């Protein structure tokens, strides 16, 4: 089952079965939740920020496929110590490189859901920019 092992490589299954930074922080300096309307994957992210709006702690909760949950788990490790602005500007490829698996367009949405929710949380709390490709309707929704 070569294709299976390519997609669900050991690291992915490990993060899926034992997610890092799992559980929401309370209190938190920034928080947001989001879902993938195509498949109903849900992710909530909470963040504690230190000096210079640097991410000190991050916690997430969610339910969804192995790719979405593992990617968010890996993301939480990746962003610790980065500033809100650095995360806002972080290209999705940084996370995808970390994942290191072939993704179809549908599964790509699963993989970057957590990153989008994190960017949204920081935007709400610190006004950092949202990705251009989200378009104006998503931005309006976010600003409510």
């Amino acid at each position, binding site marked *: 089952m070569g294709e299976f092992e390519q997609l*669900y490589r050991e690291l992915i299954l490990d993060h899926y079965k034992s997610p890092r930074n799992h559980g929401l922080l309370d209190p938190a300096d920034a928080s947001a939740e989001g879902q993938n309307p195509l*498949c109903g*994957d*849900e992710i909530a992210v909470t963040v504690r920020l230190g000096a210079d709006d640097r991410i000190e702690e991050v916690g997430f909760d969610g339910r969804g*496929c*192995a790719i979405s949950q593992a990617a968010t788990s890996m993301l939480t490790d990746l962003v610790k110590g980065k500033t809100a602005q650095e995360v806002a500007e972080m290209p999705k490829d940084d996370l995808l490189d970390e994942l290191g698996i072939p993704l179809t367009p549908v*599964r790509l949405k699963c993989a970057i859901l957590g990153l989008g929710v994190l960017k949204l949380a920081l935007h709400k709390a610190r006004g950092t920019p949202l990705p251009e490709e989200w378009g104006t309707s998503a931005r309006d929704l976010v600003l409510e």
Partner: protein
Amino acid sequence: MSREYDADVAVTAKTTLDAQRLRADFPIFEQTFHGKPLAFLDSAASSQKPRQMLEAMTHFYETSYANVHRGVYQLAERATEALELSREKVRALLNAPSAREVIFVRNATEGINLVAYAWGLSNLGPGDLVVVTELEHHSNFVPWQYIAHRTGAGFRMIPLDDHGQLRLDELDSIAREGNVKVVATGVVSNSLGTMNPVDRLAAWAHEHGAIMVADGAQSAPHMKMDVQALGCDFVAISAHKMCGPSGVGALWGKAELLERMEPFLTGGHMIRSVGVDDSTWGELPHKFEAGTAPMAEAVGFGAAIDYLTEIGFDAIERYEHELAAYALDKLAELPWVTSYGPPADRRAGIVSFNVDGVHPHDVAQVLDFEGIAIRAGHHCCQPLMRKLGVAATNRASFYLYTIPDEIDRLVDGLHKVRKAFG
């Protein structure tokens, strides 16, 4: 292939279809996916296409193509005849009283929007109620919710019981909340396969002076439909789910209602006369068919109806029940699989299920590696998913070309899923 299954089939040999033979009509099965033959268990989303239908469309383009209802030349007449012959085939399929009540639309969704806009905007207001079901596909839910909001009408859902069947005992309390003006339901649920009691809902609707709108997209492919016996006022269907092409469907409506309605889309072909100050509308069905029709698609739709009629809807329905029963039995042997919906004898060829602790996306992905295509998601039924308490399910759906071997492969695949994620 299972022997028990064959024995069941043999009892009803006279009207049973030969799925193995019919598969040869479908070119899609000549390919492999991930090196394996295709087990296509997603027909409820859209069906595969028989060569006979594809050839009818090609033949139309090669020999009879011109814009319809326009030219006086022979070729245009030929095209018009082909389109109108298809309209007559849809009429016969639905046992509609008249072909002028059959409107070609893009799909069932567009047909329902036509009714919601053209009837709803002029007939709904504060104090009125639009009633849908908790099982409803978004196609027969969102248009009504939207038009209710626009007109100030109330919007209510008939809830489900634990078997995925409508709670008709709730109807009286719904009726006490306002003037019931629209009752909208699918004939068969696309998620659970539940067959709804449309005739009883129609009787209730008419008692309250409401119109009855049925989404037939999931039933027309699988069973004989009779709009007069169902007692509906409008029925919408999609060709693509019943061996026809994408891009065409039909709305049937009672002429007396259609005639009193405002148009939905306006433009060419649907007018009687156009002036600077005002325009008047053409006769049925043209009043609701603005612009150039999906002509070749309609011809393909007609050929698909011929194909299904030749096999026989009774045989198709019975065969799908057998497949559903077979699949439910097989899934019941897996204690780590939960299936949803009513018993096999009260459902169409649709089985929704979850594998304990494994998200449907991951299930579908692993099955794909085995050449098995199923649907994973909310199936355009988010209210129903909330009721079931799940974000999504896996759905295997069957059609006349499904063979029991594909269900066996599904079960084998689920063991692999279990092994990988369990």
